[in-house]
């Protein structure tokens, strides 16, 4: 093992103190590897805090393109004294611990099964930079230079990325280059390099981009024609709003320099979704972004949007629950609370993207579906997908695509209509009625929107018969929704096993890697990635065709499995659950061992 050279298959983890500028240095490190054509997966593991607490940045480098998290750290760069002990313990035997040797490492931190590489980071920084804040910032570039040299990174690529990063402040580029050189030279003078675990340029990223899901969602909303965004700050969804605003400033200014969008930071999540409902009711495309606690607060309005049939797009970037939970860790634990949000009989369409490209595509899809179905569509993302950069296919837009604005009557339509306009009248037999936008016509098409029980003409009614007609139509509309939501994705041309693997969202990265390993072991399994709720008919079919289905998800209570049982009436004994819910993204290994364990027990 010691002498074996491992190329393009390693995990580097940086242990920092948050608020010290380490994030941007670490991001440049990851981006440079991506520029060398090597698939890379960075994960920012950060505290709910602004300054002073431990934060980690983990970069998985995988020539094979495995984009899930992998346990086991090959190189740990430990520059945070607070977490030093834990960090050292986390290094894989045979791995490397790169640390700040300005002070001698205490004996309790010495492990015999790992290698130590001491770089006097702060000492070098203090020798070269007079200002404490600069010392702190450039210390980061010193370790980047050191690690880059140790793993044989192309320094020119790193320099190019640094120059791009600081394009707006070119004055600071030379000092960053200098700090980089300090790290590089120290390694060259004191250690044998490169290490036996290293990287090498390859050509495995194609036209992929490195982007986070929240930015892709924000861009998706712009491409979908959203003009109103109302939101309330909450981790990990805030950057959706930020991205929407940032790109609107570039892409949505009219000829008078005025904004073709309204961006409202609401007083709370209740107001945020209220504003979205008001805006879509009035004919604009509008959306909000939030996380679990926000969805809890929005429940009342979610019911209104369902019952009064008002389009809403809600981006739910899930975090660890319940309650305030783990606000800076990831989970897929808002499934039931999203699917059945609000009191009374309610059901909502959920979309499950698994990559930034799909975040973009599904955000656009969500607007079309919301207008088509006149209801709330929730895009279910999570912290891992939303806030971490992912290698993703490029964002795609077809210029021939036309927005589906659904059934909206124009003034001309109303003029030509012979019958009375019934806001909740099922004219076409698909349970979707026609709507009118306020201000359309002086005397025709006005109606009264309400959350109380109403008849086909939007009139208040306490009649049981009228109520049944209305809610039964809503149930029928749910059947229409099933035909419109994205189909699942399959990973085999035809079935070859009686065991099926079912997953969705960010579990996909790890699941795909697990499938490859099964392949290597000749363990046959069929796989399906579900992309929407309600479940597409093909999901039902796949489950019928397999004796056992392994449902992989990232929450304690196997909520997705519950949805399958509840909606498809499946015998629970056929659905085997593999879960991961410690707040860190699931790994292929966890899926692999989970499946083996569960199958051994059940057979």
């Amino acid at each position, binding site marked *: 093992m010691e002498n074996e050279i491992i190329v393009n298959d390693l995990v580097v983890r940086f242990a920092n103190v948050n608020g010290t500028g380490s994030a941007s240095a670490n991001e440049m490190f990851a981006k440079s590897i991506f520029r060398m054509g090597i698939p890379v997966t960075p994960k920012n593991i950060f505290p709910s805090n602004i300054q002073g607490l431990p934060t980690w940045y983990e970069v998985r480098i995988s020539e094979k393109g495995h984009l899930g998290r992998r346990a086991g750290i090959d190189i740990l760069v430990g520059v945070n004294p607070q977490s030093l002990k834990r960090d050292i313990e986390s290094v894989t035997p045979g791995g490397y611990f790169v640390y700040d040797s300005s002070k001698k490492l205490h004996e309790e931190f010495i492990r015999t099964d790992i290698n130590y590489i001491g770089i006097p980071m702060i000492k070098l920084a203090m020798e070269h930079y007079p200002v404490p804040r600069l010392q702190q910032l450039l210390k980061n570039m010193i370790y980047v230079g050191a690690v880059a040299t140790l793993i044989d990174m192309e320094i020119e690529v790193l320099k190019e990325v640094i120059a791009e990063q600081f394009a707006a402040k070119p004055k600071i580029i030379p000092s960053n280059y200098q700090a980089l050189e300090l790290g590089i030279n120290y390694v060259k003078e004191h250690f044998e390099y490169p290490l036996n675990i290293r990287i090498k340029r390859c050509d495995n990223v194609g036209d992929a981009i490195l*982007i986070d899901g929240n930015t892709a969602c924000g861009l998706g909303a712009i491409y979908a*024609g959203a003009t*109103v965004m109302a939101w309330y700050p909450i981790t990990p969804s805030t950057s959706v709003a930020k991205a929407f605003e940032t790109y609107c400033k570039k892409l949505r200014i009219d000829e008078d320099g005025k904004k073709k969008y*309204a961006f409202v930071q609401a007083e709370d999540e209740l107001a945020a979704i209220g*504003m979205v409902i*008001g805006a879509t009711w009035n*004919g604009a495309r509008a959306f909000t972004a939030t996380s679990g606690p926000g969805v809890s607060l929005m429940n009342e309005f979610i019911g209104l949007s369902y019952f009064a049939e008002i389009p809403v797009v809600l981006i739910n970037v899930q975090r660890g629950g319940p309650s305030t939970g783990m606000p800076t860790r990831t989970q897929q634990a808002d499934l039931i609370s999203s699917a059945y949000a609000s009191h009374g009989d309610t059901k909502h369409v959920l979309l499950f993207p698994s990559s930034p490209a799909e975040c973009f595509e599904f955000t656009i899809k969500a607007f079309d579906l919301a207008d088509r179905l006149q209801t709330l569509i929730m895009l279910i993302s999570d912290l891992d997908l939303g806030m971490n950069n992912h290698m993703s296919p490029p964002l795609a837009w077809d210029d021939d695509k036309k927005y589906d604005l659904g059934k909206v009557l124009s003034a001309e339509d109303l003029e030509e209509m012979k019958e009375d306009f019934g806001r909740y009248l099922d004219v076409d037999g698909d349970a979707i009625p026609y709507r009118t936008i306020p201000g359309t016509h002086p005397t025709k098409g006005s109606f009264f929107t309400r959350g109380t029980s109403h008849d086909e003409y939007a009139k208040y009614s306490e009649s049981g018969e009228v109520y049944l007609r209305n809610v039964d139509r809503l149930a029928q509309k749910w059947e229409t929704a099933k035909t419109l939501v994205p189909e699942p994705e399959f990973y085999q041309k035809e079935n070859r096993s009686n065991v099926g693997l079912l997953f969705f969202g960010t579990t996909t990265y790890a699941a795909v890697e697990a499938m490859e390993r099964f392949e290597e072991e000749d363990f046959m399994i069929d796989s399906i990635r579900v992309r929407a709720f309600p479940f597409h008919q093909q999901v039902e079919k796949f489950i019928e065709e397999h004796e056992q289905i392994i449902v992989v998800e990232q929450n304690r209570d196997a909520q997705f499995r519950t949805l399958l049982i509840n909606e498809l009436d499946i015998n629970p004994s056929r659905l085997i659950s593999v879960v991961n819910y410690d707040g860190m993204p699931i790994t292929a290994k966890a899926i692999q061992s989970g499946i083996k364990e569960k199958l051994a027990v059940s057979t």
Partner: protein
Amino acid sequence: MSYIKPAFHHPSLKPNKVGYLKKDYRGVISTLCAGCGHDSISGAIVQACYEISLEPHKLAKLSGIGCSSKTPTYFLSNSHGFNSVHGRMPSITTGANMANKDLIYLGVSGDGDTASIGMGQFVHAIRRNLNMVYIVMNNGCYGLTKGQDSATADFGSISKEGNANPYQAIDLAGLALELNATFVGRSFSGDKNQLVPMIKAAMSHPGFAFLDVISPCVTFNNTKTSTKSYSHVRDHIEATSTLDYVPFEEEITVDYPEGESAEVELFDGSKIHLSKLAPDFNPTDRFTAVNRLHEAKSKGQILTGLLYINPESKDLHNLMGTSDKPLNQFKQKDLCPGSTKLEEINRAFR
């Protein structure tokens, strides 16, 4: 696009300038209790809209939950309406206004809907100077749930339940003034002469126009011991002024006595003419208004009239710098940046 209204109508009623009869502004028959103050306010809204020759589809009426929030069905049947959820009318109105800045937004709420559950949204709509008329039909009690005191019930006031209210009242007009609302008025459902021009002025105000209208609850809070009863309000009312709303295109034909009147010009050239009852009262001076409100309160009086107007008001669209064209009018070609732009964006992430 122009629409021609049918020419036939009851010969005794005249159509207004846009060809509508008063009945075109009515709604369905009210189901509120006979004598409810709210019905008078609905009547005042109908009158105001008829008089200013508003095309009914150019107004959207919105409400929360409660007796007051039911009233939008009792006026303006040709306008779109939205009876939302309890205390959340301001957020719905904010969104609606963001989508289309060209409609008039008339929000109707009650004292429970605004001063308790909806307080958060109320104050933030003021803070943003949302362009809307916000009417609180204020009766000091929860009617639909059978008469519990509301947060605007005065200290010591005794409703039908028979217990003196031990809590301090929230004065919504005072609060609106404190928060720099750009138009604040108070009136009484029983004073149509004051209320109708005040609604008209509020509709032409470019910003948040707040009207706190005392509106007695005949069923639960019209007792001799209640401070929100018809008799108590009539006995304790003090008006700052009487007012006329004069639309831009109309000439002032009435002679107002010099020195006892004031005129405020609105952004659209319309004027509010005030015949001042209180000689030192200036409706554009917020501090005077706050002081007069406190003075009246300490004397047990209810100060009514236009309490404050900021003629320089800039509404939310103005503050945000949104396009002159309503956002809901933009089409895909105006909004979607297209594939070439997207490729450029993709490149930045490589």
